[in-house]
């Protein structure tokens, strides 16, 4: 059998503290194919990609590229041997032209050794024409729409003669026609002999574009399928797996909602993000909201809590229409917000856990505005016990905790305010399975204690096992609302990805 592999992964393992992100993953990527990697959040896709592109060194295992083992974990080294990644956050040079972005290394020189801009422009035009793209090489990249910026970055990877290009959610935020263009570009790349690792949540897209598909689940390699022989159902089954049911708390029978509407959005619009969104949150329910990247979910989350305002439409908090709200009003009205990225916001990493807990409760934990330190510690200890946070003392700073415990701490900060509604954003992102299960149990408890939940999550099993209702967003609008048995992966994904 001819070994056609360009990249071999052998027993790659990687842990971050107690979290095993990758467990002895082994498979091969063949030369000149489009190889998709599928998996739920936390399956290990991003860690795997980091290993391949040299950003992280695996704890165990080997990476063999074109026959020789990669011993150095450095993105620059990976670049030099031919591996590159086109990130979601672009690494483009905004202020420069398309041509300058495609050829950042000075490859075109005149006889005197100067930059030959004319040839650079011509070559860029050639490349663009080769892939049937109508982009002006002299245009500043900042002026291009997102799709074209992505394309420019891909063309740079080609221009630099990369042999293996990793594309991470390349169609996120693109509309139908832009997606088409990108997909055909990727296929042309494959035809030119470049190997592509394609990461995407959009199963239909993956089926259309890939040659082979590898599925990861919970850090383990599950299987590799030929795309033409695979079906959506089979892929989802492999991604989600039967065992996972046991991990998630049993779905409770649908609750009867108390009827009172806590939060309502009516025809809320913000150009570029949301269009005529209508949404209602009732008492004692867990409402899930799902949308792929670029569908507007992030903006919706911000607008719900008053972090941003809409251009048109009405937001009603407990029945009363509100003008410009800010977060302190929402907090006073009984709402609280759990941020999706605890490293960016949601915790004060350099302050003690007790101080973290105290932040939204400064009024309650002080006597005539002077902080009652004893009360603060007692309050914090209460939550440490309640949520089983593994931490030496309330004085410890969150930066010293593991991801799962940090998340639980953030949870505590929010729930300590005894809110009537929590807006949760990716509450179990990046934490180990055990902590995840615990947090899910806490979430299910909430409606019983008169707290409603709005759950923004990109993990379908999470939404399915926790929510009473799920609302799906696609391309700035709400495209569907599911209840009861209708809440399942197939229906949600088909609404979100457009079939």
């Amino acid at each position, binding site marked *: 059998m001819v070994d056609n592999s360009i990249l071999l992964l052998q027993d790659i393992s990687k842990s971050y503290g107690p979290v095993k992100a990758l467990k002895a993953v082994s498979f091969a990527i063949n030369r000149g194919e489009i190889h998709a990697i599928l998996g739920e959040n936390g399956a290990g896709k991003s860690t795997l990609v980091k290993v391949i592109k040299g950003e992280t060194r695996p704890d165990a295992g080997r990476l063999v590229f074109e026959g020789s083992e990669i011993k150095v974990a450095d993105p620059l080294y990976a670049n030099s041997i031919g591996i590159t990644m086109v990130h979601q956050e672009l690494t483009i040079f905004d202020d420069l032209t398309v041509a300058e972005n495609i050829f950042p290394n000075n490859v075109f020189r005149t006889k005197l050794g100067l930059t030959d801009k004319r040839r650079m422009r011509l070559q860029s035009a050639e490349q663009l024409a080769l892939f049937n793209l109508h982009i002006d090489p002299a245009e500043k990249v900042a002026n291009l729409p997102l799709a074209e910026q992505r394309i420019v970055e891909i063309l740079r990877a080609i221009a630099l003669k990369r042999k293996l290009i990793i594309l991470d959610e390349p169609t996120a935020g693109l509309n139908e026609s832009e997606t088409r263009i990108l997909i055909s570009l990727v296929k042309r790349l494959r035809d030119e002999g470049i190997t592509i690792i394609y990461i995407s949540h959009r199963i239909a897209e993956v089926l259309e574009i890939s040659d082979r598909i590898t599925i990861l689940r919970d850090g383990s390699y599950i299987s590799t399928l030929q795309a033409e022989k695979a079906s959506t159902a089979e892929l989802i089954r492999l991604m989600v797996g039967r065992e996972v049911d046991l991990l998630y708390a049993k779905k409770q029978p649908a609750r009867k909602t108390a009827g009172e509407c806590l939060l309502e959005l009516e025809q809320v619009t913000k150009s570029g993000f949301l269009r005529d969104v209508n949404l209602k949150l009732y008492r004692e329910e867990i409402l899930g909201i799902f949308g792929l990247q670029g569908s507007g979910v992030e903006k919706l989350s911000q607008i719900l809590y008053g*972090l941003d305002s809409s251009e048109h439409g009405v937001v009603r908090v407990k029945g009363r229409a509100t003008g410009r709200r*800010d977060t302190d009003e929402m907090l006073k009205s009984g709402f609280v917000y759990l941020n999706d990225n605890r490293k960016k*916001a949601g915790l*004060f990493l350099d302050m003690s856990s007790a101080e973290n807990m105290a*932040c939204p409760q400064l009024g309650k934990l002080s006597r005539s505005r002077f*902080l009652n330190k004893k009360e603060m510690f007692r309050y914090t200890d209460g939550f440490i016990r309640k949520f089983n946070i*593994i931490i*030496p003392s309330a004085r410890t700073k969150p930066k010293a905790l593991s991801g799962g415990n940090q998340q639980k701490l953030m949870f505590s900060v929010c729930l300590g305010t005894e809110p009537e509604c929590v807006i949760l954003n990716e509450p179990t992102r990046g934490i180990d399975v055990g902590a995840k299960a615990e947090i899910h149990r806490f979430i299910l408890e909430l409606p019983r204690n008169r707290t409603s939940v709005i759950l923004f999550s990109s993990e379908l099993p999470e939404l399915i096992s926790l929510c009473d209702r799920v609302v799906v967003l696609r391309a700035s609008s709400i495209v569907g609302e599911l209840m009861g048995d209708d809440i399942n992966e197939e229906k949600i994904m088909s609404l979100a990805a457009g079939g």
Partner: protein
Amino acid sequence: MATATTTTGKRLKLHEVNWGSYSIYMVNVLAIVLLALTRKNFPRYPNLYSLVFGLSMEFLLVLATTFLLIMGEVDLSIGSVFAFAGVFTGYLVANLELPIWVSIPITLCATGIIGLINGTLVVRLKANSLMITIGTMILFRGVADGLINFLGGITYPSEYRAIAGFKIFSVHFTIFLMLAAVIILEYLLRNHAAFKKLFYIGSNTLSARLYGIRVDRVKLSVFAASGVLAGLAGILAASRSGQTVWNTGQGLEFKMITAAILGGASLFGGKGSIVKSILGLLLIAVILNGLVMFNINPVWTNVVVGIVLIIAIFVDTRINRDKIEY
């Protein structure tokens, strides 16, 4: 045993002791002892008194700087506002012949408004306070100098000059003011809810906002307060010097930032202490006094402060920088 394996794998104990936070005390003691042993003029009462008195003229500025740094902001215009306030009050008293107890509040209102202007630009436009306040620094330096030029080289009226000289038990009142302010404000900083907000804002502004802190409002207030404090300091200094002085206050903003960073505050926000900032100011004063004691030309002052600043921000960056910015 409930120990956490941290994400970095380090054990918690060593990190819980912040050795660095005591260093300013130790360095001060070191410097003072060294100087006392080597120069017999140093520990003499007149010299020490003059050192502390000088401190009491400037401490208000380091208060403002500390509060702003805790939030992750700076106000480089305090030196210019300092100069402006001194001359402006002189103008009100001497030229407009307003009584001193009217002139001072007017000036403080003006400087408070200057602070608000700085704050508004920083808050509304999310502009970098470092850059914006350089602009206002130049602006108000121009205003102050223009005012001095307009007034000519006058001596201030006696009622103005009397303020700084006011003594209680033959000790200038500003020294008492300093001691009282330091103790009270440090206590408030550690224990009062409103002051705690400064730390939250500096540690993670977005988190502070998520949990209901009105970041914009707090920042505006502190910038306004910075204006008022700088104004007050300027009035006291002008009163002490008794006449219009060119280029007064120039370089003070850097001295204050250096003092605060020596005292543990960070350009990246989230840290700071009033007591330690004052000690940082003291250290600088001791060093400069030492230069005088060793008969080094006072022109070297700027160089020394500059070097101390560079060292301070070097250390600050090494300890507190999160990501690569340049």
